[in-house]
């Protein structure tokens, strides 16, 4: 069954670089992985070539279950580009992941009504298969 509350595939274009490619490779397999500093254990997101805390470069990719709470959100109701008009409204949520030094993932909260979404609401991670080999994180209210 089609997901309700996501944008059409044609407006979702990923342009990974060397730092972000591992995230998207894992995403395509429906796994959420986050880069963690091998020197001081600080998570960094979005993926970056330096640790914001200790400036080391090396990371290990740590899998996260992806469940968290809505830190904040907006309900996008007005299309600023025509290609998204039929998909609106969509709920864009910023979800903070516990135990990650405050890493936040942005994704649509799907298959629910805007009125049901609240700051601090617990959510679980799911994936939107945009096309073969490309998936982006989405969330569902628990």
């Amino acid at each position: 069954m089609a997901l309700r509350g996501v944008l059409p595939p044609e407006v979702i274009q990923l342009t990974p670089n060397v730092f972000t490619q591992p995230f998207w490779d894992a995403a395509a397999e429906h796994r959420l992985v986050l880069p963690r500093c091998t020197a001081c254990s600080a998570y960094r997101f979005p993926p970056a070539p330096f640790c914001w805390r200790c400036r080391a470069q090396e990371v290990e990719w740590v899998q996260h279950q992806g469940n968290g709470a809505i830190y904040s959100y907006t309900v996008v109701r007005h299309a600023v580009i025509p290609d998204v008009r039929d998909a609106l409204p969509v709920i864009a949520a910023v979800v903070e992941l516990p135990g990650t030094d405050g890493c936040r993932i942005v994704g649509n909260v799907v298959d629910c009504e805007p009125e049901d979404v609240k700051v601090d609401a617990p959510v679980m991670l799911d994936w939107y298969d945009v096309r073969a080999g490309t998936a982006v994180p989405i969330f569902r209210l628990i």
Partner: protein
Amino acid sequence: MTVTENTLKDKTAVVGIGATPYYRRGQSLPQTPLEMAGKAVIAALDDAGLTVDDLDGFALYSMGFDTSLLAQWLGVPDVKFTAMLTGGGGGAAGSVGLASAGIVSGMADVVVSVMTLQQAASRFGASFAPRGKPGATYSAPPSPEGNFIQPAGLHGPGQMFAVLAMRHMHLYGTTREHFAEVAISTRANAVRRPTALMREPLTLDQYFDARMISDPLCLFDFCLECDGAVAVVTTSAERARDLRHPPVYVVASAHGGHGRWGQAITWLGMPDEYFASSGHRPIAQRLWEMAGVGPESVDVALLYDHFSPMVLMQLEDYGFAPVGESGPFVADGNIRWPNGSLPVNTHGGNLSEAYIIGMTHVKEAVEQLRGTAVNQVDGAQFALATGGPASIPTSALLLRR
């Protein structure tokens, strides 16, 4: 560490202001953006009683433009200083501080800060949208960092600032009525101004009847999308005393921000301590330190208003209201002209006069301190102008007469 000795304080003054008419998005054609910049520069020099022969520096922001062609067109005799604040729309006020830095250092004598804008071929409202269909004019190429927010539909600054506004509401009980007070009070100021693009009064009913763009923001929480140019000329305090208008002194200016504020709305990972803020707190702290005065001295505040909730957060970050209490502060009528304790955006702001990426705020600060503003604050001595809450640098400028 205090910074009271070796600063810019009172060493320079704004002596000229100039602008083109303001236009709805795309209506400035067939002029070109650089042509409009030239018109504003000439107007600002003329306002000062100076000419292009006196001009020797450019201080820009927000990706600016290449000054070589403009200097060539205008025949500037000797260019000695061309510099630009990095970042997005945060540098408007700070570009005058940059001009002052060039003058105080001795590198230049008469420096112009100028913004020119034409949103015919593209619009800021969709500046983070994907490239779209061939031939579409609303597009921007996605960046690797943008990949983490754009797929969810955050395609313009308004959708992103809405997230900050929602968090502020959650933490502090801020309401849409508080946002409305910013929009309505700003519109009330624009009604009296011939230069304003929006001159019909705005009622609370109209505000709540307007379409929602991105919750909690409705149409009237968004600034205008405009064309036009505004220029501001700065020189040494000594030279300023011999020019056409009474000098408007640069008391203090600061720009920058916390590194972990960073790209701000395009990553949304800012530390919890100041996520629901304008990013201006470190700027405000240095501004007041340099000035030797605080928010209680400000007679009129020109606060960058791309989105109405960000005016509230600046009121907090500059210390006009405690953090979390800007909503009740505006509800009490404090930002209304002429009777509020702190009239805000007496020119009609980005919301109702024109959006020239904040340079209209600097221009209005100068007019208020000359005593020539349309909505004059009686006896205004100190005026604050700010640059946009945005990626760093954000910026501020404190002027006095």
